[in-house]
């Protein structure tokens, strides 16, 4: 088993799916000859040709719209938004068309598209290259939102997303692209969309998070373990629809829950997780449900100290975990 980076797992999954199914094709800005600005599609243009790796105009609405149309005609498009921040012009296509088609046509039509987009901060990218956009889509039945944390999960979930019969938004943390590495098998495997993964077992408190923050929580958990505090780390992996069962099970077990997201605090995916716990686990709670999240300011600032202030970090997560453990 090879140890590869997060972004290499993206490329690997795309290549394997394109080799497996000739209906799979890629479209997006600079995904062809350039291989994408992050190099996620590197080598695919050379391998599969311009008919299956399409460079599009700078028009996100068109990228999503073309993908939706092609999927309804039997293709398996994988569209790339260069940055998640740029998905906004395509929101109408995604929410009003892709998410609704199966419901609106009473099951006659469906829309098996994947829209990949790098999100998140910590790369000195400032306002238009650091945003987390998942909360905008996370109350739209018909959509699925996958946000993996490890290269292993990236490969298994991206393949599952491409094979899914309905639209999937696949958000990749851009800071994780090259900083996170892990073992990824060469063989063909898929992971279930809609299932959270307990990345670390513990009895004293639960940290529920997703994406890059999973690694921060795991690092912090190791530090707490030195002081005899065992934290459970739950990686949501799919933030919509949410895996209620795993959340309820872990929250009921420890009674102390910290929810971590890099997104703005209010109305984030974690607000929904908090509500699920409040609805189901009242008599098992030993502490208030805690949320650790970005401040409620419009976006990640450019200045380094300000970016650090906004971003999640192992230190912030550790501090919040210790605080909850001591409660």
């Amino acid at each position, binding site marked *: 088993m090879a140890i590869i980076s997060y972004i290499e797992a993206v490329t690997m999954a795309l290549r394997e799916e394109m080799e497996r199914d000739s209906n799979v094709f890629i479209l997006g800005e600079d995904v062809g000859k350039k291989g994408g600005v992050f190099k996620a599609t590197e080598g695919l243009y050379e391998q599969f040709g311009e008919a299956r790796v399409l460079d599009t105009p700078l028009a996100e609405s068109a990228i999503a719209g073309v993908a939706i149309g092609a999927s309804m005609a039997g293709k398996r498009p994988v569209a790339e938004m260069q940055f998640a921040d740029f998905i906004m012009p395509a929101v109408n296509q995604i929410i009003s068309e892709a998410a609704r088609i199966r419901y609106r046509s009473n099951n006659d039509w469906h829309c098996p598209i994947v829209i990949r987009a790098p999100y998140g901060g910590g790369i000195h990218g400032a306002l238009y290259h650091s945003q987390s956009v998942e909360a905008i889509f996370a109350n739209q039945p018909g959509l699925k939102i996958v946000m993996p944390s490890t290269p292993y999960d990236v490969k298994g979930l991206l393949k599952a997303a491409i094979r899914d019969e309905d639209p999937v938004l696949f958000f990749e943390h851009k800071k994780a692209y090259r900083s996170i590495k892990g073992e990824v098998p060469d063989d063909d495997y898929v992971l279930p969309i809609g299932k959270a993964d307990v990345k670390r077992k513990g009895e*004293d408190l639960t940290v529920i998070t997703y994406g890059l923050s999973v690694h921060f929580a795991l690092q912090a958990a190791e530090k707490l373990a030195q002081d005899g505090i065992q934290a459970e780390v739950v990686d949501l992996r799919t933030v919509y629809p949410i895996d209620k069962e795993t959340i309820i099970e872990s929250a009921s077990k420890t*009674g*102390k829950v910290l929810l971590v997201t890099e997104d703005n605090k209010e109305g984030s995916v974690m607000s929904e997780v908090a509500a699920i716990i409040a609805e189901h686990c*009242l*008599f*098992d*709670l*030993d*502490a208030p449900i805690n949320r650790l999240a970005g401040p409620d300011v419009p976006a990640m600032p450019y200045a380094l100290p300000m970016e650090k202030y906004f971003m999640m970090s192992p230190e912030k997560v550790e501090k919040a975990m210790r605080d909850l453990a*001591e*409660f």
Partner: protein
Amino acid sequence: MAIQPVKMPKLGESVTEGTITKWLVAPGDHVQKYDPIAEVLTDKVTADIPSSYTGTIKEIMAKEDEKIAVDDVICTIETEEAEAGKEQPETSTMQENKEQNQSGRFSPAVLKLSQLHHIDLSKVKGSGRGGRVTRKDVQHVIDHGSDGVQISEFAASSTEDERHTIVPVDGIKQTVAANMVKTMQEVPHAWMMIEVDATNLVRYREAVKESFKKAEGYNVTYFAFFVKAVARALKEFPEMNAMWAGDHIVRKKDIHISIAVAADDKLFVPVVKQADEKSIKGIARDVNELARKARSGTLSAEDVNGGTFTVNNTGSFGSVQSMGIINYPQAAILQVESIVKRPVIIDGMIAVRDMVNLCLSLDHRVLDGLICGRFMQRVKELLEAASEETMPIY
């Protein structure tokens, strides 16, 4: 004057530890803020650590050539500045708030666990912030026990020593006990007893007993006849089928007779619904069914709710006289005592008759001696005239 710690600085994005290769100061040396105090080597750079304060080196903790984690204290400096930690007054007040005594405040998880295992939380030592009892503290008591804390195994089962036995009281018994106390404190009870000649009833029942058992598969008891007679009399005396409601009295049109059933040292009071509309067989069947349910613990809420008057078969225990406690919020309870053979004078001659006492307890706010006397007299008449014609089985 204050002692300030100097910590290992983070010398680069991914640096987690460093090695002090050389101390440039010794305890007692005076340093200015930003003066270099030590040389440090990380896997990226070699750099000087500047002093964070102006003052005198107090103590040096970090040894040379030893790896020190970032943020570990390497030395302390005695400064001339006033007390430290004043720059963040907000956080320190928040901290104080959090440190307030939390020993009387319990989380849902703690309450649930403690109730499940009957743990007295006032005796559990809290390890949480401000002395709060945490879920783990309770779990620890459950797993390991603790001095002075009683847990379920003790409380829920009987314990014995040489001189006494402790019998636990479960939920049903607790409820019954509370109701009895409430009724006795709230309701002014009065009592009355009449004597009924049940000879005709005994003959009548003896005549039909065998054939009934054969036809229906269960016994036709005396109790069914008593319930029937009471229900019929209640129809004629609606005053009896009533309850006290503070500033008024509620008279019930439906006649639902509560009957007391003892099972496994528990007392149940299921209800024979619309008893006045039922035949002897119908009542006997209901009584039989309700008693079976009570003994098997399968009575539903439907089976026990809605009673308007209670008939209690105290005679089955051999009692000949008793004073029942009213089944709150009903207005009266009638106790059917044992049927016993006694010499009775009839027309100046001594005869052996089957006699039974009926004892009535009444709520004196709702009822009085006059109405109860008439009611009891009517019950007596009905029972003494019991025959195939007046009280048919079917």
